[in-house]
C-alpha cells in the first residue's frame, strides 16, 4: 500500500474503471487513481409498483443491488419509503435508469441527475482541489481518501499547479490570428499558424515536457482547442491535450437561454481529462474574480474546476444544496412535482412581489448616508430558517410570515439554511478581514476575488428558491424571503423617520437617508444599531455622500426610477449606477466624457464653478470627433441581440449589424453581443467584426454628438445645464462661457423666447 498527501485535481466517470481520479502529490508526482464507486438512485411510489420494479430489476440487471429503506422527502416534510437501486459503476446509472423510467413512468425518482463529483464529495468528504490523504494499492486502486481541510476554511495552501497559458495574438472572431503564444513560466513560445505540423510538434513537445495541470486559454473553447484537435487529427500528431490516454477532449455545444430577463449565450466548451482547461473568455465572471475566485467556487460547490468556472452561480448554489441533501439523507428529486399552496387572491397579490423598491426624490441631495443590509436575502434565509420543509400552512404552528398566509417552523434547521450558512459565514469573515487589512497587503487581492465569487453564489441563492426547475426551489420560500425583506426595509424607514431622518430612497436592501445635523459616520451609528437590533439582520454604513443626484427616467425625466444615480462620497470615491457611464451598450467615447464630467464635479468644493470647464471640455471633445481624432474603437457600441434575425419587424441597429455579419458568414445567436459603429446613410451601422476597418469618414458624427450631449445633460442638469441648453451652448461663442453659473440662465431664457 502507498500513502501520500496531495490535492484532488480532477475526477470523472470511466466505463471500465468506474471512477478515475487525478491527484497532484505534494512531492510533485501526478497520479491516476481508480475506484469502482457504486452509485445509488431511488424510486418512490406505490408499494405494488415498487415490488414489481424490484422483480424486474432482479431479472434484467442481476448486478444491481436492491434494498428497501426510507429517505427524507423535504416536500412532504417526512421520511418516505423508497427502493434503493445501486449500480456497481457510475457509467451504468443512466443505462439502468432510462430503462426503469420507461417501464415505470408512474413512479417518482430521486438522486438520479447528480454530478459524480458531488456524489464522491458526499461519500468521502473529498471535494475537487481539496488537500487530501490518499491510500492507494500498487495498481493505482484507491483504497481510502480523507480530506485534510474543510472547504469552509479561509486560508488554504496555494495549489501546486503547473500552468500553461495559450492564446492567439488577436481575437479570432474579429480578425485572422497569425500566431499563438504559449507561456509556461518563464518560457514563451510563439507558434506560427502557417506551418501546422511544426506548430503541433512544438506544442506536443512543450506539453510532454512540462506536463501542465492547468491550461488557461483565451478563446480556447470557441476556437483554439477545437482547431488544434482538428489539425492534430488531420496531420495525425497526437498533442496529448488530455492526460488520460485513449480519450478525446469533451466538446459541449454552445447554448442560448433566458435568465433574469436577459437572453444569455454561453459559448461551446472544451473539457479535458486529467488536466484542466479554462477559457478566460468563456468563464463566468472571470473579470471579477480571476483564478482565485474560480478555485473558491470549485471548492465550495464541489464541482470540478472545469465545470464550476463555466456554470452559472445558480448551478453552483444548486450543487451546494444537493451536497447537503446527499450528506443528510434527503432525497434529491429528479423531476419535482411541486405545486404552489392554494391562496386567496388578495394573499397572492401580497405574496407575488419582489423587494421593496422606492421611487427616489429626483434631483440633487447633500450629506446623504447610504446604509445597506449585508447579504440581505441569504441572511434572511438563514436567520429566519426558510426552506421548503419549514414552510407550514397557517394554523399548524410556527411563526407567521408577515402578510402571507403561512408560517415558518423553527424547531429544526432547514436544508437550505443548513447548506448556505457556512457560505454566508465564510463571505462575512473574508469581508471582515478585508476591512481590517491594508489595501496593498499581499492577501487583499486574493480575498477580494474570493469574496466576489462567494457574493455571486449568495446573490442567486434566493432566486433559485423560486425557480421552478431548481431541485429544492419552492415558491413559498421565495415569497417569504421577499416578505421579510419588505418588512425589514419598512421597519428601517420608520426607525429612521422616528430619529429625524428624511428617507431619500430605498432599494431592496439599502436606504439613502439624510439628517440636517447628522453628517459623520459617528452620527449615523445609533441609527444603524437600532435597525440591527429591531430587524435582527446585519446592516452597515456604505458611506456618506457629499452629494448624490437621482436621475429621472430616460423617457420622462419627471418620473423617478430606482437605481439611476451618481454621487461622491465624503471620502472622494465616486459611485455611478444606471446612467450611460455604467451601461454596457454605451460607446467609450460617451462613457469617458460622462465620467470625466462627474469627476470634475466631484473634485470641486462648489460643483457649479466647474460648469464652464465642463462645457469647454465637451466642445473640445466634439471637435475632436469632427476632426476624426477619436479612435474608431472608442465609438463602438455593443448591444445584445434579443431574438433571431428574421423575428425583427423593424430591426434595431444591433440587428442590422448582425445581418451584415450574417451576410459575411458569421452567425450571431440571440444573447450574443454585436459590436458596431453608427454610420451615415443606410443601414446606419457597420458591424465592427466585419473584415477590414470601416472608413472613418462615414462615422455619424451628429449621432455621437447627440449621445454625448444627452449623457452630459443628465449629469449637469442638477446644476442648471440640461441637454437642450448644452446643445445651444455648443454653437454659441466659447468666450461667453467663462461666465459664472447663475448668468447662464438668462442666455437660455433669451433663446427659448
Amino acid at each position: 500500500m502507498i500513502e501520500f498527501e496531495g490535492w484532488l485535481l480532477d475526477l470523472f466517470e470511466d466505463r471500465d474503471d468506474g471512477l478515475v481520479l487525478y491527484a497532484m502529490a505534494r512531492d510533485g508526482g501526478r497520479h491516476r487513481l481508480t475506484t469502482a464507486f457504486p452509485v445509488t438512485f431511488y424510486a418512490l411510489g406505490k408499494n405494488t409498483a415498487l415490488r414489481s420494479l424490484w422483480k424486474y430489476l432482479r431479472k434484467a440487471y442481476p448486478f444491481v443491488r436492491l434494498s428497501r429503506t426510507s429517505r427524507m422527502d423535504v416536500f412532504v416534510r417526512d421520511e418516505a419509503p423508497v427502493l434503493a437501486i445501486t449500480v456497481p459503476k457510475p457509467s451504468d446509472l443512466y443505462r439502468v435508469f432510462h430503462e426503469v423510467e420507461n417501464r415505470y413512468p408512474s413512479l417518482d425518482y430521486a438522486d438520479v441527475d447528480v454530478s459524480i463529483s458531488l456524489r464522491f464529495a458526499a461519500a468521502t468528504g473529498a471535494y475537487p482541489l481539496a488537500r487530501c490523504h490518499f491510500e492507494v494499492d500498487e495498481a493505482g486502486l484507491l483504497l481510502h481518501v480523507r480530506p485534510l481541510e474543510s472547504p469552509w476554511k479561509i486560508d488554504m495552501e496555494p495549489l501546486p499547479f503547473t500552468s500553461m497559458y495559450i492564446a492567439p495574438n488577436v481575437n479570432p472572431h474579429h480578425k485572422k490570428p497569425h500566431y499563438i503564444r504559449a507561456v509556461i513560466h518563464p518560457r514563451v513560445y510563439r507558434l506560427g499558424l502557417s506551418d501546422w505540423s511544426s506548430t503541433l510538434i512544438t506544442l506536443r513537445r512543450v506539453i510532454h515536457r512540462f506536463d501542465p495541470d492547468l491550461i488557461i486559454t483565451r478563446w480556447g473553447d470557441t476556437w483554439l482547442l477545437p482547431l488544434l484537435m482538428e489539425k492534430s487529427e488531420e496531420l495525425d500528431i497526437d498533442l496529448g491535450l488530455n492526460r488520460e490516454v485513449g480519450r478525446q477532449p469533451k466538446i459541449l455545444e454552445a447554448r442560448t437561454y433566458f435568465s433574469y430577463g436577459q437572453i444569455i449565450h454561453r459559448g461551446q466548451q472544451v473539457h479535458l481529462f486529467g488536466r484542466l482547461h479554462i477559457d478566460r473568455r468563456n468563464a463566468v465572471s472571470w473579470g471579477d474574480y480571476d483564478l482565485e475566485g474560480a478555485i473558491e467556487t470549485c471548492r465550495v460547490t464541489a464541482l470540478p474546476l472545469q465545470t464550476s468556472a463555466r456554470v452559472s452561480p445558480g448551478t453552483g448554489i444548486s450543487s451546494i444544496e444537493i451536497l447537503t441533501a446527499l450528506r443528510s439523507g434527503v432525497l434529491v428529486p429528479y423531476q419535482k412535482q411541486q405545486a404552489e399552496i392554494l391562496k386567496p387572491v388578495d394573499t397572492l397579490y401580497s405574496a407575488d412581489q419582489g423587494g421593496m423598491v422606492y421611487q427616489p426624490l429626483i434631483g440633487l441631495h447633500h450629506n446623504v448616508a447610504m446604509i445597506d443590509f449585508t447579504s440581505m436575502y441569504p441572511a434572511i434565509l438563514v436567520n429566519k430558517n426558510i426552506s421548503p420543509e419549514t414552510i407550514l400552512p397557517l394554523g399548524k404552528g410556527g411563526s407567521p410570515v408577515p402578510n402571507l398566509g403561512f408560517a415558518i417552523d423553527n424547531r429544526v434547521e432547514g436544508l437550505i439554511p443548513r447548506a448556505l450558512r457556512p457560505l454566508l459565514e465564510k463571505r462575512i469573515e473574508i469581508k471582515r478581514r478585508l476591512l481590517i487589512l491594508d489595501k496593498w497587503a499581499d492577501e487583499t487581492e486574493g480575498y477580494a476575488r474570493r469574496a466576489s465569487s462567494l457574493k455571486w453564489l449568495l446573490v442567486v441563492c434566493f432566486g433559485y428558491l423560486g425557480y421552478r426547475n431548481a431541485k429544492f426551489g419552492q415558491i413559498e420560500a421565495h415569497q417569504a424571503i421577499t416578505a421579510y425583506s419588505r418588512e425589514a426595509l419598512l421597519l428601517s424607514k420608520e426607525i429612521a423617520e422616528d430619529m429625524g431622518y428624511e428617507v431619500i430612497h430605498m432599494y431592496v436592501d439599502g436606504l439613502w437617508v439624510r439628517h440636517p445635523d447628522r453628517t459623520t459616520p459617528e452620527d449615523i451609528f445609533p441609527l444603524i444599531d437600532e435597525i440591527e437590533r429591531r430587524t435582527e439582520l446585519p446592516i452597515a454604513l456604505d458611506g456618506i455622500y457629499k452629494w448624490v443626484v437621482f436621475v429621472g427616467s430616460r423617457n420622462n425625466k419627471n418620473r423617478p426610477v430606482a437605481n439611476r444615480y451618481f454621487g461622491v462620497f465624503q471620502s472622494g470615491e465616486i459611485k455611478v449606477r444606471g446612467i450611460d457611464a455604467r451601461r454596457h451598450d454605451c460607446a467609450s467615447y460617451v462613457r469617458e466624457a460622462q465620467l470625466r464630467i462627474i469627476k470634475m464635479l466631484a473634485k470641486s468644493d462648489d460643483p457649479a464653478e466647474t460648469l464652464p470647464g465642463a462645457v469647454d471640455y465637451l466642445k473640445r471633445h466634439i471637435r475632436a470627433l469632427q476632426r476624426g481624432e477619436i479612435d474608431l474603437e472608442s465609438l463602438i457600441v455593443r448591444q445584445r441581440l434579443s431574438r433571431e434575425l428574421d423575428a425583427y419587424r423593424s430591426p434595431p441597429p444591433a440587428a442590422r449589424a448582425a445581418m451584415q455579419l450574417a451576410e459575411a458568414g458569421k452567425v450571431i445567436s440571440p444573447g450574443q453581443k454585436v459590436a458596431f459603429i453608427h454610420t451615415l446613410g443606410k443601414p446606419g451601422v457597420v458591424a465592427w467584426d466585419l473584415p477590414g476597418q470601416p472608413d472613418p469618414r462615414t462615422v455619424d458624427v451628429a449621432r455621437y454628438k447627440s449621445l454625448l450631449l444627452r449623457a452630459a445633460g443628465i449629469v449637469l442638469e442638477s446644476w442648471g445645464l440640461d441637454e437642450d441648453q448644452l446643445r445651444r451652448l455648443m454653437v454659441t461663442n466659447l468666450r461667453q462661457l467663462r461666465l459664472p453659473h447663475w448668468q447662464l440662465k438668462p442666455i437660455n431664457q433669451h433663446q427659448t423666447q
Partner: protein
Amino acid sequence: MGRTLPSATQNLHSQEGSLSRFRRALRRRDQLVLDDLFDAAYKHIAAVAYAANLMPFESYLLCMLLEEHKAVMRLQNEVAELKDRHD
C-alpha cells in the same frame, strides 16, 4: 421573470395606456395636466405595490390626491407667510 402577476409599474403603465382614448380627446393643455397627474402616481409605486389592493386604480387616484394636497399645503403656507410679511 417568475411572476404570476404584472408588477406595479407594469400595471400603472397599462392603466395609463388604457386611458389613451380618453387622453386623445382632451385638449393639448389638458393632456399635459393629465400626464402630470400620472407623474404623481409614478412617485408612489412602492406604496401601491405594498398595499396590494385588488383595484390599484383607487390607489393611483389617492397618489394623485396626495400630491395635489401637498401642493395645496405648500401654497397655503406660502400665502400665510406672504400675509405675515405684508402685515
